[in-house]
């Protein structure tokens, strides 16, 4: 600490104290100081003030459904929906068996086929053979367009470092034909389960890479999304963490989780969703799925993928992509 002379100290104290009292009776209008009353008069006159009925109209039109030409598939009585394969062909194979055994009439994938795991090309024949109806995730969008990164939406440099590693690996190991196929996938689908119409997207109805976490997707927000989309339910993925909220309107919003890596809960199993038609509600089951995660870890080692990823597969705890977690989800996280 540099030593200060008594005069320096007095000067500094004077400056500090004048800063603390500088605004007495005055308002800051930009960099100007003006009498408080002058600022208040200016703000009272600024902006617009609609009548009560005009405000009601504004709010109502804000919530109004936006046109969506997406055709509606179905009706079904039971479907399986999963997301985030992340090259995990072991989990995908296990899922196809499990979903059929549980009576799913159709199987939907919400995108993000690549990243994280090994041998990207292996999931393609499984999707084809299982007649999986797939939509585009940010991974497919980026790979098909030849972009340099996955557009996952990370901000932290460490998260981006690992995202670049896994995107680079996937991009190098995907055939041009597979990338073309990805580019032709739709960005959303609509399905009918019983009487209910459900919207299927990757991140959110607004953005392919928007994160819908449980602790940051409040009920009023979800109600408006469903109203604007004229849907009885919404299914999404992208965050990696599964959850289900039933809204006061009776609508359902489900993040189906991912089958590519565990849900950051210390368990090796992954998650997908079964929805079915029940008499008075939509049946929603988030299904825990075991698979040969040791074989996956072994193949990841052979492919020289980062140890951090392999550790996640084996331990069930995330070691990367932690910065995106909201406070509640981060508090429940090991790292």
């Amino acid at each position: 600490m540099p030593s200060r002379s008594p005069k320096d100290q007095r000067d500094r104290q004077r400056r500090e104290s004048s800063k603390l009292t500088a605004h007495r009776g005055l308002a800051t209008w930009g960099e100007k100081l003006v009498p408080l009353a002058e600022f208040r008069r200016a703000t009272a006159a600024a902006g617009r003030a609609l009548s009560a009925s005009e405000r009601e109209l504004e709010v109502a039109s804000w919530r109004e459904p936006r046109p969506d030409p997406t055709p509606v598939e179905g009706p079904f009585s039971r479907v399986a929906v999963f997301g985030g394969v992340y090259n995990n062909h072991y989990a995908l194979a296990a899922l196809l068996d499990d979903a059929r055994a549980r009576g799913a009439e159709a199987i939907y994938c919400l995108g993000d086929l690549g990243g994280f795991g090994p041998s990207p090309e292996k999931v393609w024949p499984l999707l084809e053979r299982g007649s999986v109806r797939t939509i585009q995730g940010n991974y497919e969008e980026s790979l098909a367009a030849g972009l340099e990164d996955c557009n996952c939406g990370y901000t932290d440099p460490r998260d981006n470092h690992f995202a670049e590693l896994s995107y680079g690996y996937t991009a190098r190991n995907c055939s041009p034909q597979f990338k073309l196929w990805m580019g032709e996938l739709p960005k959303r689908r609509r399905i009918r389960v019983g009487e209910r119409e459900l919207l299927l997207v990757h991140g959110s109805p607004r953005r392919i890479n928007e994160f819908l976490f449980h602790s940051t997707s409040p009920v009023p927000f979800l109600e408006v999304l469903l109203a604007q989309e004229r849907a009885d339910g919404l299914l999404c993925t992208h965050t990696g963490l599964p959850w289900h909220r039933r809204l006061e309107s009776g609508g359902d919003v489900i993040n189906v989780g991912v089958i590519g890596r565990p849900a950051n809960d210390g368990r090796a199993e992954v998650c997908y969703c079964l929805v079915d038609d029940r008499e008075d509600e939509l049946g929603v089951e988030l299904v825990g799925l075991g698979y040969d995660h040791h074989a996956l870890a072994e193949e990841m080692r052979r492919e020289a993928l980062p140890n951090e990823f392999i550790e996640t597969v084996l331990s069930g705890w995330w070691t990367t992509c932690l910065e995106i977690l909201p406070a509640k989800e981060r508090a429940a996280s090991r790292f």
Partner: protein
Amino acid sequence: MVETTRSSPPAENLAAPVVELGSLDTLWFQVAGTVCNLACTHCFVSSSPTNHTHENLSLAEIVPYLEEGSRLGVREYYFTGGEPFLNPEMEAILAKTLELGPATVLTNGLLLDPVRCERLAALAAASDYSLDLRVSMDGYDAESNDPIRGEGTFERILAGIGNLHRAGLNPVITVTEVHDANASREGRVRFFRLLTELGIDKPRLKILPIFRMGAEAERGGAYESWQRLRQGDAPAGDWSHLQCSACRMVTDQGVWVCPILVNEPEGKMGESLADTLEPYPLEHPACWTCHVYGVSCRT
């Protein structure tokens, strides 16, 4: 000298672009007005103990905005000032807000005593939604922090962060680029180390650029005349990367376009949220900062 011909009017004659409100995701409250127990030399709203340009918002004033925000599908609520915990109703406001959605408080950390931190942790635990505390610092040591935030503040901020941590809350440390070193690789490492030494094993850090306005205009200099947005600055006129395409700010005097422009009457858009769903012209030089630095005040 080569003669050039202009195919378009001089840049200064072009009208400012306008930003559409695509969705109302983030609702801000200037909950403590511009009143603060500090007078930081880089504060873009010049908050100080005597700055009453905006006053506290009471719970009763906030509730109608929470209700209106819910109907418009607000996703998250942010509280700033001034110093939010100078507002005597701050915790009651948070309790009410956390019934509706996630909340974040931007604080200088000085009023985070152990008892308050325990109460905040209880509020966080009782809600389905996330509660985040963002604590501001402007240097990783007293020598760099205190000239900006005030004598002795570094130690007091660390004490507040420690109290949050012991109560089970993990704050996001918010640092401005007031010193170049803050945002550097080494700077980040120093901040992370500081937090780790306090026992925080999951350090969280957000770095924000400086807005050259308010007190900062005097400290670091004001905007230059060329620092303005023009039509064509964003590809295809898409301004959806700006926070004002998805936020509004409530103060005791109405609803503003964003948290940055509250000391500009032109930043005010209306009295209720429904008045403010219109596009807004990006005329202020601060809009340039948000665009060029890709800033969002959200965490």
